[in-house]
């Protein structure tokens, strides 16, 4: 069952990658990148079980963290064109918009 799940996950990753390349808008790409990250976390876990070494789960946990922060960072960058804005600067930009 682990092999079947890994195969299904790989097929799903190919489909997600297709949407990330073909997606008409930026948000489609961000969404599929986020989804791809979740699938990578699951794939790392499954591969750990498949090879009998579930120690890879630390990497999977780290990947989940990086995935979330990366998604939020991409969205913040494309909204404000700047990653180092403080909350005060963001509030002043919101006022001018």
């Amino acid at each position, binding site marked *: 069952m682990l092999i079947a799940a890994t195969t299904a996950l790989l097929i799903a990753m190919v489909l997600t990658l297709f949407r990330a390349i073909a997606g008409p808008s930026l948000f489609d790409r*961000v969404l599929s990148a986020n989804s791809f990250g979740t699938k990578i976390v699951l794939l790392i876990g499954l591969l750990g079980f498949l090879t009998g070494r579930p120690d890879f789960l630390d990497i999977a946990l780290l990947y989940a963290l990086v995935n979330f922060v990366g998604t939020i960072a991409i969205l913040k960058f494309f*909204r404000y064109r700047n990653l180092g804005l403080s909350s005060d600067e963001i509030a002043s930009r919101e006022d001018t918009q």
Partner: protein
Amino acid sequence: MIDVIINSASATLIGAGSIFILIGALGLVRLPDFYTRMHAAGVTDTLGAELLLLGMMLQAGLSLVTLKLMLISLFIFFTSPTSTHAVANAARVMGLRPMSGSKDILTSNENT
């Protein structure tokens, strides 16, 4: 006996999770609009991921591995709706309109 039960439960959960992940990926490719594609991504992130992790947890037994799987599961459970909301909010603020279901509105948009 208990091994058989745990193994079959784990196999069922992993199988159901991979089916949900396939459905989500198929929806991500086939659905017509960004806001509808978000539903498909949601299926993958919640049901698919949680079922797969639950199945792996049953397979691991009681150990540190289960704790790590629980942490991953909890983290995905909280961050995936947050990031989906952030993407949807950003799309709406930046002016991406949802596709309207009505045919009249579609044709009138093309005319204007």
